[in-house]
């Protein structure tokens, strides 16, 4: 008997692919955030784990709840919900009630991603949208900064964490101001070494600049991040504060203080670089980064808030489609730039 030929497929070329996939890029972000997560656990103990987990749980639940039957597996498999939850958690105060963290994660995914059409279609960074929601809804809890656990040990839980949903939190914990708050409202300057290694008050992820940079380098090596965005944000902030320093070195922060304080590194490396909500064109990335840097400094120096990274990125997110449209690269062999 004649041997049958194999049934040939007719997939069109190219048959080859580079190895990376979208879920693996998402997992890279999770890995890159591990040093910062570890640092937050070092400083804030078990509370860090609890807050981060509650945010991730809220985000993943929203992904699951709002997915159709067909896409349910997809949205969980691509790990993007975990990235959103983790990023959101790292921007929150360590003593935040857990139910608020959960709600933030849920709202971030629901309003920040699902209603836009899911992964890849959203205009705003979902983690930051979740944080903006919490900031607007629970302003007191969101600005109550507890100091590191210190002697109390790893398993000491901040009392605020365990507040029941929708109950008034009795803030009797020793609360203190962040370096930016100290700077803005009390003119106290925190030493740079504390800023870089994390001996400061602040949100879970913003306390250790070195851990954040470490993850950024990893993402850059894996080619998961457009280096132009963090570089242009940080360069703009440094330049801006250097210029301010020329006017009044006493009143305005030094460039290095500006870079290492607050959520700037977290925002510049992990949030502004979210591919979905930042421009795809190289020139667009520069414009986007410079815009974020300028807005951060304007809000920090002239605004009513000590910190402005969140609003700066969200504002520039909204300009992303426009930036992309007007920064298309010149096509090979064509003189004039096409809009």
């Amino acid at each position, binding site marked *: 008997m004649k041997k049958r*030929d*194999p*049934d*040939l*497929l*007719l*997939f*069109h*070329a*190219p*048959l*080859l*692919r*580079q190895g*990376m*996939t*979208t*879920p*693996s*890029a998402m997992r890279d972000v999770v890995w890159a955030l591990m040093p910062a997560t570890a640092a937050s656990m070092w400083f804030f103990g078990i509370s860090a784990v609890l807050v981060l987990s509650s945010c991730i749980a809220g985000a993943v639940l929203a992904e699951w709840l709002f997915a159709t039957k067909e896409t349910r597996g*997809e949205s969980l498999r*691509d790990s993007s919900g975990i990235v959103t939850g983790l990023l959101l958690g790292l921007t929150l105060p360590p003593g935040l009630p857990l139910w608020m963290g959960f709600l933030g994660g849920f709202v971030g995914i629901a309003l920040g991603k699902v209603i836009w059409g*899911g*992964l*890849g*279609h959203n205009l705003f960074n979902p983690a930051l949208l979740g944080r903006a929601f919490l900031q607007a809804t629970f302003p007191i809890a969101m600005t109550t900064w507890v100091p590191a656990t210190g002697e109390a040990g790893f398993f000491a839980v901040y009392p605020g964490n365990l507040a029941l949903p929708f109950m008034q939190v009795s803030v009797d914990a020793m609360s203190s101001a962040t370096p930016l708050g100290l700077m803005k409202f009390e003119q106290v300057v925190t030493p740079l070494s504390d800023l870089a290694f994390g001996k400061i008050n602040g949100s879970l992820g913003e306390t250790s600049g070195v851990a954040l940079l470490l993850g950024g380098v990893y993402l850059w090596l894996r080619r998961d991040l*457009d280096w132009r965005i963090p570089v242009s944000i940080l360069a703009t902030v440094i330049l801006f504060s250097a210029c301010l320093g020329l006017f009044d070195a006493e009143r305005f922060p030094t460039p290095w203080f500006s870079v290492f304080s607050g959520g700037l590194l977290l925002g510049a490396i992990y949030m502004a670089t979210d*591919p*979905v909500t*930042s421009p*795809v*064109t190289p020139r667009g990335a520069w414009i986007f980064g410079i815009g974020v840097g300028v807005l951060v400094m304007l809000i920090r120096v002239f605004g009513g808030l000590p910190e402005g990274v969140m609003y700066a990125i969200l504002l520039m997110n909204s300009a992303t489609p426009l930036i992309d449209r007007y920064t*298309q*690269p*010149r*096509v*090979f*062999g*064509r*003189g004039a730039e*096409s809009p």
Partner: protein
Amino acid sequence: MKALGLLRRSFEHGVHPAHHKGQTADLPIQRVPFGSHYVMPLGQHTGVPAKAVVATGERVDRGQLIAEPGGFVSTALHSPVTGVVTDVGNHRDVDGRFAPAIAIEADAFATQAVDPKNAVDWQSLSLDEFISAVQMAGIVGLGGAAFPAHVKLSVPDGVRIRHLLINGAECEPYLTTDHRLMLERPEALLEGAEIMRQKLGAEETVIGVEMNKPDAIGVLRKHIQRGQPVRVVPLKVKYPQGAEKMMIKSVFGKEVPAGQLPRDVGVNVNNVGTIVAIADYFLRGMPLIERVVTVAGPGVTYPANLVVPLGTPVRDVVKFCGGLKPGSREIIMGGPMMGRPVASLDVPILKGCSGILVFTEKETARRREYPCISCGRCLEACPYFLNPSRLARLSRSRMFDEMKELNVFDCVECGSCTFACPSNIPIVQLIRTAKDDLMHRREPDA
């Protein structure tokens, strides 16, 4: 200064697929034994199909004209074997559709020799005579697109060709036909180059070779005689280095304007195989009746570089290489980035077939597609600086006219965008769909 020059020897953007050339790079070219059945499709390239000049039952010699050009953008066909025409009708083309073709049954007792008396004295030919000789020899670009070679030689008045650029990049993974030709037939390559250069009136010949073929660069340099106006230029290993406009950019630093041709910047680009075919015709009297094919890929038992008579069924070629391994699922004619899938093992080897690549279940497994996350990798891959992600999105919504404004017709379908996409979006396939629709759309009645 020289080191700087070497660093610059490339175009911008592009991708870096794994080479996969180790399977066949060191294997000398062998000849496939003659089989029994041959099919020569009349249309083997863009342009007009050839017109058959033989009838069923007629006896033909190897190298004998069997179809004449059907127009200017059309080339002649010659019998790949001595035998009998069994049918002038419709036969399976590469994609499985029926297309006009001439079927020939080989004479098992013929010597299958080509009469060297057919050689043409090229020096006495005028340029126009030379061009029509190339057309009658059936010579097309052997790199893959199979564009008729004589069309590129016809230069309008006022345009002067200064450089003959020979494309030895072979940037497609797996393929090693040009590599082997440069190693084994450098004299023929240089002879063909000299014929072309003199006929074009070009000042010099430049041979561009990717730097992953240092042996080929060495052999060519050794064969170039002192004073001969030939240069070998090593090029950065990057896909698509062998796309002609990219190679012109790499070698001369010039951008061919969109919608124009290499001749408009004074360059004529030809593949290594094409130049060897020119030498074989004008010096040895052999029209294009056979070509070098790389048979490789994970599904091939014994990979090889083979001289295959045109019209040989893929089945015979694969059989000569030990057959398909179990689990083979797809056969690509050409390279893995731009080649065409083969519909059946009975499909014939065409003039433009640089490779027969067999892939298994592993490489053809369905890849889960994810939403576009605007990562920009396709923009950084596109050698034409297009916005593939946007084009793919527009194609999905069938907004083809908007794609025209985004210069979709500048796309050469090199596939770098699809290769680079982490979401496994079939970007170049979507672009091809749109281009196809736009090109074949009937103009609305005025």
